[in-house]
């Protein structure tokens, strides 16, 4: 069944859209990430113009993260104080990201920056995750008991000025690294159409030493709020949010995410992280190849200026 997407101005198969939404939603439920880093490239490869794909997936990420954020909130797994700092700086970063997005699109370099951004970000995060999870799995095999990092271990990052007390996370740390993380994720997220959960979680765990019981919830709350703001920014700035496209993806995504979350219970944490790392690296390699290999067509075209 074909459905006409009014902003993308092309018709696509409804079942295909709901299907990729569900498939990515399954993976996002399984790994506890937003899934934007898979969905945006998938849409671009299936013919949706890159600006529309990025802006619409932003809306989808809001939906995908909402149910998770709510259930964490009910369990008390969100440090609202910390999330507020992250969101405020994140929205600021998103302003920068959306503005950069418009400049790059007009200069014809948006595709390049999306590819480079995904390659560097996913390649880096994927490699780190793979190393970490392989180590954990090997230690497990040898029978070494892996102890969680103690929350009161401090690094130089915590010693920076402007310290704030975050009660729920039992942290008394400088607010500067929190703001930098928020700013960076806001900028990158709005530019690439990703929630940034897969950067946020490691950053909170390894840099800020946020305890495990509030990491996922806080990250999800931050993703919901920041992506909501980014969606509105994209709608105002580039008018490339396709609400029908986003809705098809949302419906598939929220359904898939529930099944993914139940499937995730059968896998162990480090196995999940290892699988996610491989997935992330695969996407990074795909983008890397598109930059390095000779393109099928060295010519491309685009419409300039305002949409009618």
């Amino acid at each position: 069944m074909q459905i006409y997407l009014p902003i993308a101005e092309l018709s696509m198969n409804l079942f295909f859209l709901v299907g990729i939404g569900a498939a990515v939603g399954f993976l996002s439920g399984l790994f506890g990430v937003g899934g934007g880093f898979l969905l945006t490239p998938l849409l671009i490869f299936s013919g949706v113009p890159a600006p529309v794909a990025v802006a619409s997936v932003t809306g989808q990420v809001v939906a995908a993260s909402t149910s998770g954020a709510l259930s964490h909130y009910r369990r008390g797994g969100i440090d609202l104080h910390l999330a507020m700092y992250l969101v405020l700086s994140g929205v600021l970063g998103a302003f920068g990201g959306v503005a950069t997005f418009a400049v790059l699109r007009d200069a014809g370099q948006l595709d390049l920056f999306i590819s480079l951004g995904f390659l560097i970000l996913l390649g880096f995060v994927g490699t780190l995750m793979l190393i970490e999870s392989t180590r954990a799995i090997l230690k497990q095999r040898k029978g070494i008991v892996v102890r969680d990092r103690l929350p009161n271990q401090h690094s130089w990052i915590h010693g920076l000025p402007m310290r704030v007390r975050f009660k729920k996370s039992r942290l008394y740390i400088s607010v500067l690294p929190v703001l930098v993380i928020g700013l960076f994720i806001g900028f990158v997220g709005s530019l690439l159409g990703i929630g940034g959960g897969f950067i946020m979680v490691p950053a909170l765990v390894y840099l800020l030493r946020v305890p495990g019981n509030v990491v996922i919830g806080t990250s999800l709350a931050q993703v919901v709020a920041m992506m909501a703001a980014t969606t509105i920014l994209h709608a105002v700035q580039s008018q490339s949010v396709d609400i029908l496209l986003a809705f098809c993806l949302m419906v598939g995504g929220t359904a898939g995410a529930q099944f993914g979350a139940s499937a995730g219970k059968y896998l162990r944490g480090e196995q999940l992280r290892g699988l996610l790392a491989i997935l992330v690296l695969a996407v990074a390699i795909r983008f890397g190849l598109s930059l390095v290999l000779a393109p099928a067509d060295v010519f491309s075209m685009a419409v300039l200026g305002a949409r009618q």
Partner: protein
Amino acid sequence: MMRLLALFAILFGLVAPAHAARLVSQVSNDTVEITSSFDGERMSFFGQIMPDAGSTEKVVEGPFQTIVVVLGPTQNRVARQKTHNFGIWLNTDQVEYKNFPSYFHVLASARLKDITDVTTLTTNYILPEAHTLMPSGVDWWKSAVFGRELVRLMTEEGLFGIQENGVNFLSDNFYSARLTLPSNAPPGPYIALTYVFKNGEIIARKSEGFSVRKIGFERFLALSAVQQPLLYGIICVLLALVTGWLGGVLFKR
């Protein structure tokens, strides 16, 4: 488009007296409506070649050839070229084409080169490449190279095309032409220019307009995205929040 119309008016004045003939023509639909299930639209163009008004002849003698040119709304388009730099491929060169048609299809009753000469085809913008011609002062070689590539890309998208068997003559002076507008046909005002040729010369011409537009819900969505972007964005977010929440409730983890 204005340029085209001006040219059309001038040429009409020059050519008409030589071989007087009149074209009575019609388009099957004057609006193509884009609905949620829009998957392209079939259109037909038909017409009859008649003696000019005031002429004593009852019928005009053929054989005639007809070309129908369908032009979509114009846009500013760029063609870009990737080159290999420092190990990666990136866009390094581009040419901008102002007021470039977003849709261009030529339907003809015979091979274009058998109907008339290339000069007539080019000056009447019947060949796709004619739209990539640049005003003087621009690097014409580069614009010609990029123009050819742009036409090729548009053809691959199904937005440009030439069908040299697109027009059928049902009698000596009655023709019909069929065109399938693709689903990615850009919305906006379209113009269908019909040229009648006899012995390689234009003896009659006519233009008709039709519009491709979104209607109903699609039109509402596309308009609100442009006219009320803030509200549209907020509604997108609310929709996402409700869908996410509903998903969580329905499936009760």
